[in-house]
């Protein structure tokens, strides 16, 4: 069943116009990769920096104000989602049959679930947190998970190349 599913995902991705576009010019893939890395830096410079502050680094920075950088992290994430989907469409077999890609998806799901956990369970405790203040333990747990999850996404992503079929 899984083999059939993998096969049909690969076939479906190959039948899209995105697939044809990504492979239409040898320069497109390197450009997408460059954008993917810029998006990564944007995500790390905002979301991960926020995580580090809540965990206790740079306490003179008020988390309430630092949270204003998060939309830039979301922008970085959207760049990476778009370019990532284009990679997948371009060479679906390299991702579907790839253990590192599965690891990346697991870390990615963890990061996504943790966003829900953070805003529903922990954000109230840091929403108005000012300079010098220590964050409550719940926020530290959620930002700690975020830090691990995004690093995991990046490590697994970088290892993709070496687990290609």
């Amino acid at each position: 069943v899984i083999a059939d599913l993998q096969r049909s995902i690969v076939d479906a991705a190959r039948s899209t116009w995105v697939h044809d576009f990504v492979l239409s010019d040898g320069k497109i893939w390197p450009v997408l990769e460059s954008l993917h890395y810029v998006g990564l830096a944007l995500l790390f410079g905002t979301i991960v920096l926020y995580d580090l502050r809540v965990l206790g680094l740079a306490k003179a920075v008020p988390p309430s104000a630092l949270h204003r950088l998060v939309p830039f992290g979301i922008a970085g994430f959207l760049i990476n989602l778009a370019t990532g989907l284009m990679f997948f469409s371009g060479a679906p077999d390299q991702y579907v049959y790839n253990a590192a890609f599965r690891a990346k998806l697991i870390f990615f799901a963890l990061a996504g679930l943790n966003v829900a956990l953070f805003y529903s369970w922990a954000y109230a405790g840091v929403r108005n947190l000012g300079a010098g203040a220590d964050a409550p333990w719940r926020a530290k747990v959620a930002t700690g998970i975020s830090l691990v999850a995004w690093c995991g996404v990046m490590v697994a992503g970088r290892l993709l190349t070496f687990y290609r079929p």
Partner: protein
Amino acid sequence: LDPIFIWIEDSPLSRWVTGEAFPWILVAHTIGVGFVAGPNAAIALRILGVASAIPLRAMTGFFPVIWLGLLANVPSGALLLIGYPTKALTNPVFYAKLACIGIGLALITHVKRVVLLMDGDGAARAEARAKAMAWMLLALWAGAIVAGRLLAYTHSRLTASSP
């Protein structure tokens, strides 16, 4: 320079880099990118007016993240250079990357001194200059990242002994 390149490429260290260690050296280098370029971008965005409720001086608290990132990037970058000296040193893009990083690091330490630590002390007068430097920081780190990524595609030779 080819004899030097061949000597490096034939060394056990170079062979270790291009062999079993290669994926993990790239991982370290990529994590470093996130932790160096990321905070640089955050500091630049703050100077440009995003999250302006953060005191500029407080942003200096993120500098240890940059230094920690460099601690991952510089040794891993040096190892990658030992792994593929011909590939890097015969490619103009590699020198563009190094220039972006060198100028970027000099600029962020300058920005720390004359913008972040001077917060509230003639800061308004220097605001236009500070913003220009912030845009430069964003351009330099994006340039370093793009140049670095394109190294995989723009080299004319991989090793000194290969055609």
